[in-house]
């Protein structure tokens, strides 16, 4: 479904992503794990067109995205919940969701909204509230709900557990599993390697801009290297 081929991304003269390749197949949950600064978010931003790779290519549903502007990528079925959520803090919950459906025909809006509210009842309760007044967990739900409004085939989540209490992290991961069961393919970036590996079909480990290890979620969760480096074992 998603094929990333040998991308190299630079911030000015800093070579942030080095020859990274990976794939996501339909129906999978794939996770990219790695320490802070390893380049996980940079990779997602390159896939969604906010950053450009100098060489290499990003293919989604057999179409090359390298020259597609960022605002046209979401309508291809690829939604990105960015790091730090980046919801529109001064707009209401419902207006945020409206923006999520920006590329979709108006006729399906009510049904999409009802779906998102069913999945996240908290958002329905707070739909007239300004998004900036929501708690961290609610903001993450809003960011995910906003992305779902575009009916993505591939949902990319960047650190959905960041800054949340363990109970909320569990809730967010339950939602991710539910979405996956409902047929959404998921690319998950996480620092919380343990949680990420527990839900992932496959995983890639990133270290200073390079993929150093890959395998199934279960394999990596058992690997000594991973235990030492990321799981505190």
């Amino acid at each position, binding site marked *: 479904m998603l094929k990333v081929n040998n991308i190299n991304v630079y911030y000015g003269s800093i070579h942030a992503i080095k020859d990274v390749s990976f794939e996501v197949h339909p129906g999978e949950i794939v996770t990219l794990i790695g320490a802070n600064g390893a380049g996980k978010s940079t990779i997602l931003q390159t896939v*969604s067109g906010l950053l450009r790779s100098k060489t290499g290519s990003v293919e989604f549903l057999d179409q090359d995205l390298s020259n597609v502007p960022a*605002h046209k990528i979401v309508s291809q079925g690829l939604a*990105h919940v960015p790091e730090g959520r980046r919801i529109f803090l001064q*707009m209401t919950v419902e207006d945020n969701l409206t*923006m999520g459906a*920006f*590329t979709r025909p108006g006729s399906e809006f009510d049904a999409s909204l009802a779906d998102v509210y069913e999945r996240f009842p908290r958002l329905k309760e707070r739909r007239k509230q300004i998004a900036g007044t929501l708690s961290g967990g609610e903001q993450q739900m809003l960011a995910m709900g906003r992305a779902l409004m575009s009916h993505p085939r591939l949902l990319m989540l960047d650190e959905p557990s960041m800054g949340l209490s363990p109970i909320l992290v569990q809730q967010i991961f339950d939602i991710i599993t539910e979405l996956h069961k409902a047929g959404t393919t998921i690319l998950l970036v996480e620092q919380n390697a343990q949680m990420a590996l527990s839900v992932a079909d496959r995983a890639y480990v990133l270290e200073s801009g390079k993929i150093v290890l890959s395998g199934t979620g279960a394999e990596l969760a058992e690997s000594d290297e991973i235990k030492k480096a990321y799981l505190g074992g």
Partner: protein
Amino acid sequence: MITFLNHLINGISLGSIYAIIALGYTMVYGIAKMLNFAHGDVIMVGAYVCFFAVSSFGLHPVLGLVLAILICTLLGIVIEKLAYKPLRQATSLAVLITAIGVSYFLQNAAQLLWTSNPKMFPDLFGGAAIRLFDGRLTITVGTLVTIAACIIIMVVLTLFTGKTRMGKAMRACSEDKGAAQLMGINVNRTISVTFAIGSALAAIAGVLLCSAYPSLVPTTGSMPGIKAFTAAVFGGIGSIPGALIGGVLLGIIEIFAGAYISTQLSNAIVFLVLIVVLLVRPTGLLGKQIREKV
């Protein structure tokens, strides 16, 4: 008392013009995060277009206004495309200097095309007026139209940004361009629309301004432009109601300062008030506190 009322009405009228100009500044700042110092000169172009349409071609003033709006809208879009868009990734200082350059360019182009001899702008409202209190209080139709125009524009813009899809997309862009792109919003087009709206408003302001103060020269727009910028900062730049409040207050202060303190000092007093407000409330009257993200 009657004189006071008279000054108050004049102040509100002048302030309404400042508010309409300030809206252009504030919307462009809100979306593109830049100060478009050429905005005042777009006003001047609008006034010249209307002047020639009415005086030279004998068109109806309403038609003159429509023409001015069309040409200024186009001008705004072209300025943004040619001068500002290539600088999207540049430092804000580079953009600011470019804006000042565009401002000088427009003024000098106007001087070449239309000379610096003042043109007498026609009174579009035929001098009609309402007289109250045995004729001691005169309110011209021009004044009423100006205030009404300001109110209508405010209401329409508030509805546009609050209720429509495009308006919401503009607010989304003003908060976070990256996230807006992830929603599928075309940021470049949104910026272009913002410039178009701001420049259309500038044309309206130019026509209203010159009907009230009829001497039209290539630098006609610069002082009102700076004052409207002041009004936008005064009210809280980026805020639409802030532009209204800032503009109207500034107009009232200017007229009162001229009437009760000194005509020569009225501009100085206007800017003094700005300095005091910014010392007390650096984000302006309705400005949002900008918090650093952690």
